[in-house]
C-alpha cells in the first residue's frame, strides 16, 4: 500500500517521533515514568530522548506509581503538561486512586475550577508471554470513568498523531498503547497530519457486516477483512479509537449500513467495551439489525504464560473469519 504520500514506520518509532515533537514544541511538556530516561524506556519508546532533552524534560522516577501519577496531576494543575508513562497496565492499578478519584474528579468537585491537562500513557495487551501480571487489556476500567478521555492506539497513524492531540486536551487523557505492535511496521502519511480524538474511524469500507474493534483488534480485523474479500465478503472495519466518550454516531452508522455487527476486542468479555457497543446498538439500532449481535473477546482468564494458551486467550483473525462466515451463513468454504 506504500506510495509517495505515506511512509513506513514501526509503531514504536511513530510513538517516539510523537514524543520528540511534543518535547520540542512546548516547554511545559515533560515525560515522566519508570525507566523512560537512562534505560531508554522499558520498551525503548523513549530511547534517546533523555540525551536530547535532558533530565528535567525526561524524568526517570522511582517505583511509586501512585506517587508519580499524583505528582503528574499536581503539576498539570499548576499549568504544566506532563506525559506520565505507566510501564504496563497491571501497574496502573496502583495509581487507580489518583487517576479516578483525582484526575477524573477534580474538575467536577471544584465546580469547574481545576483542570488536569495530563496525558497518561499505558502499555498494555498480550503478545510477549509476560503472563498473569503483565499482559492485560484493561480498557474497560478506564472507559467506565466520566472525566477521562480514553484513547486506544490501534494503528500507526494514531501512534504518530494521538499524543499531540491529547496534549491539547484540557482534561486528562489515558492513552493505551499495545506492546504487541511495537515492532510492527505500518504506513503513515508522509506529510504532517493531525488526528481527531473525538471520532471513531472506518479503516475499511464494506457492506456485508461490520467489525467494530480497537487496539490490537484493528489489524486483526483488517487482516480478516482482506481474506474474506477474496471470498466475496465485504467487511467494514470500524476502529473505535476513542473508548470514552464513545463515538456512538459512527457505531450506529456502520450498523445501519451493514445490518450486522461483530465486536472484537482482546479485553475480557464481561463488562467490556464490546458489551457497551452491543448495548448501544440494541438500544438505538435494534430495528436495523438483520442478525443477533456477536462479541469476540478475550477469554476470561488471567493471561497464561505458554504461547499456545496466550494466543488462545484473545481472538485471532482466524476466529473472526469463522465467526463472520457463520453469521453470514457462508459455510461453503
Amino acid at each position, binding site marked *: 500500500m506504500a506510495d509517495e504520500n505515506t511512509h513506513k514506520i514501526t509503531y514504536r518509532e511513530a510513538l517516539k517521533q510523537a514524543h520528540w515533537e511534543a518535547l520540542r514544541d512546548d516547554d511545559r511538556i*515533560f515525560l515522566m515514568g519508570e525507566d523512560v530516561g537512562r534505560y531508554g524506556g522499558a520498551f525503548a519508546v523513549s530511547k534517546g530522548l533523555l540525551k536530547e532533552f535532558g533530565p*528535567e524534560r525526561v524524568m526517570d*522516577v*522511582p517505583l*511509586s506509581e*501512585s*506517587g*508519580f*501519577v*499524583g*505528582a*503528574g*496531576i*499536581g*503539576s*498539570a*494543575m*499548576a*499549568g*504544566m503538561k*506532563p506525559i506520565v508513562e505507566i510501564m504496563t497496565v497491571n501497574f496502573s492499578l496502583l495509581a487507580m*486512586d*489518583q487517576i479516578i*478519584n*483525582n484526575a477524573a474528579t*477534580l*474538575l*467536577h*468537585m*471544584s*465546580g*469547574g*475550577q*481545576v*483542570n488536569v491537562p495530563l496525558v497518561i500513557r499505558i502499555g498494555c495487551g498480550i503478545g510477549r508471554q509476560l503472563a498473569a501480571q503483565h499482559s492485560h487489556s484493561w480498557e474497560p476500567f478506564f472507559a467506565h470513568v*466520566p*472525566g477521562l*478521555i480514553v484513547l486506544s492506539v490501534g494503528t500507526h497513524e494514531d501512534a504518530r498523531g494521538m499524543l499531540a492531540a491529547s496534549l491539547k486536551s*484540557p*482534561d486528562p487523557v489515558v492513552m493505551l498503547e499495545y506492546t504487541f505492535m511495537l515492532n510492527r511496521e505500518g504506513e503513515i502519511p508522509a506529510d504532517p497530519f493531525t488526528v481527531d480524538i473525538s471520532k471513531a474511524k472506518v479503516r475499511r469500507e464494506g457492506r456485508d457486516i461490520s467489525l467494530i474493534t480497537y487496539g490490537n483488534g484493528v489489524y486483526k480485523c483488517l487482516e480478516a477483512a482482506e481474506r474474506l474479500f477474496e471470498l466475496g465478503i465485504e467487511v467494514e472495519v470500524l476502529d473505535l479509537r476513542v473508548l470514552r*466518550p464513545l463515538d456512538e454516531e459512527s457505531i450506529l452508522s456502520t450498523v445501519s449500513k451493514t445490518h450486522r455487527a461483530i465486536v472484537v476486542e482482546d479485553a475480557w468479555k464481561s463488562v467490556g467495551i464490546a458489551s457497551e457497543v452491543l448495548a448501544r446498538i440494541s438500544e438505538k439500532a435494534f430495528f436495523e439489525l438483520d442478525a443477533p449481535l456477536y462479541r469476540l473477546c478475550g477469554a476470561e482468564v488471567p493471561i497464561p504464560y505458554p504461547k499456545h494458551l496466550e494466543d488462545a486467550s484473545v481472538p485471532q483473525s482466524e476466529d473472526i473469519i469463522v465467526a463472520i462466515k457463520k453469521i453470514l451463513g457462508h459455510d461453503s468454504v
Partner: protein
Amino acid sequence: MKRNPSRKKSSSGEEERALLSKMMLIRKFEEKAAEQYTKEKIRGFLHLYIGEEAVAVGVIQALSEEDNILCTYREHGHALMRGLNPGVIMAEMYGKVEGCSKGRGGSMHLFDVDKHFFGGSAIVGGHLAMAVGLALASKKQKKNNVTCCFFGEGAAAEGEFHEAMNLAALWKVPVLFVCENNLYAMGTALKYTHAMQDLEKKGAAYGIPSVAVDGMDIIAVKKAAEEAINYIKESGMPYFLVCNTYRFRAHSMFDAELYRDKKEVEEWKKKDPIINYHQVLKRKRLITKVQYDQIEAQIKEEIDKAVSFAEKGSWEAVEDLGKFVYSE
C-alpha cells in the same frame, strides 16, 4: 492601662489580636456550621477543626498569597485563613451555586484556585503526591512559591505518604508537609495506627528535616512554620512539620465517640488554643475587654452575613447535572 512605647509593634498587639481573631473566626464559623448541620441545612460529612485552630492559623500566616495550599476534608479553617469569604464557604456547605466549588463539592471539597487553594481532598493521603506535583511545577517554572500540604497522622500510614515524601526529597522541591497529629484517625488512636509514634522521626527515612511542635500553641506553631518556610525558600527543599494537637469534637457529625474518654477530651480542652492565647494576650496586656468584644461582634456579624448569603443562594438546575465532567 500601661503602655510601653519602646516595644511599639508588639505592644500595639495588632498582629497578636489578628492571630487570635483568626482562630476565633474559625471556631465560631464551625460552631455555626454544626448548628446548621443540626438544622439539616448542611448535609453529608462535616468534619470540625475545633481545637486545632492554632495549626492552620500558625502555618498559613507564614505563607505568602502565591503559596499553594492543599488540605483534607477538615479544611474550613484553612480556607478561612487563606482568605476565602465565609459566605462562599457556607454557601458551598449548603450546596448552593454561589459556593466556592459551585456547590458541587460540599464541606469536604472547598476550592479556590485563584487563591491557590487546591481543596479539600477526601481520599486520605491522596493529595500528598499532588502537592509534590505542584511544587515540582513551581520548580520547573522557576517560581519561588511553596506548596503547603496539610494531612492527619492517620494519613501518614498510607503508602502515599511514603511515596510523596521520597519523591519530594528526591526531586528537591519546595513543599511543606504539615502533619496535624490530633491523635485519632476517626476512632483509631495513634498507637493503633503507627508502630513508631514519634512521627517527626519519619522524616529521617527520606532525609527531610523534621520538627514536632505543640500544635495547641499558636506562637509555637507560628515560629516553627516560619522557620520551615525560611528553610524551604532558601533551600528549595521539602520540610516536615508535625503539629501535635487534638480535636475537641467528634470526627464527623456521624461519630458517637465510643473510642475515647470524656475525661481525655476535658484534659485537652485545658489546652484550648484560643482560650489560652487570649489569656496570654490579656496577661501581656495586648488585648482589652473592649477589643475582645469587638472582635467577637465582628465575627458574629461576618458569620451571620455568611449564613444569610448561603440562605439566599440558589440551587443549580437539575438539567445542568452533567456539567464539570469535561471542560466546555
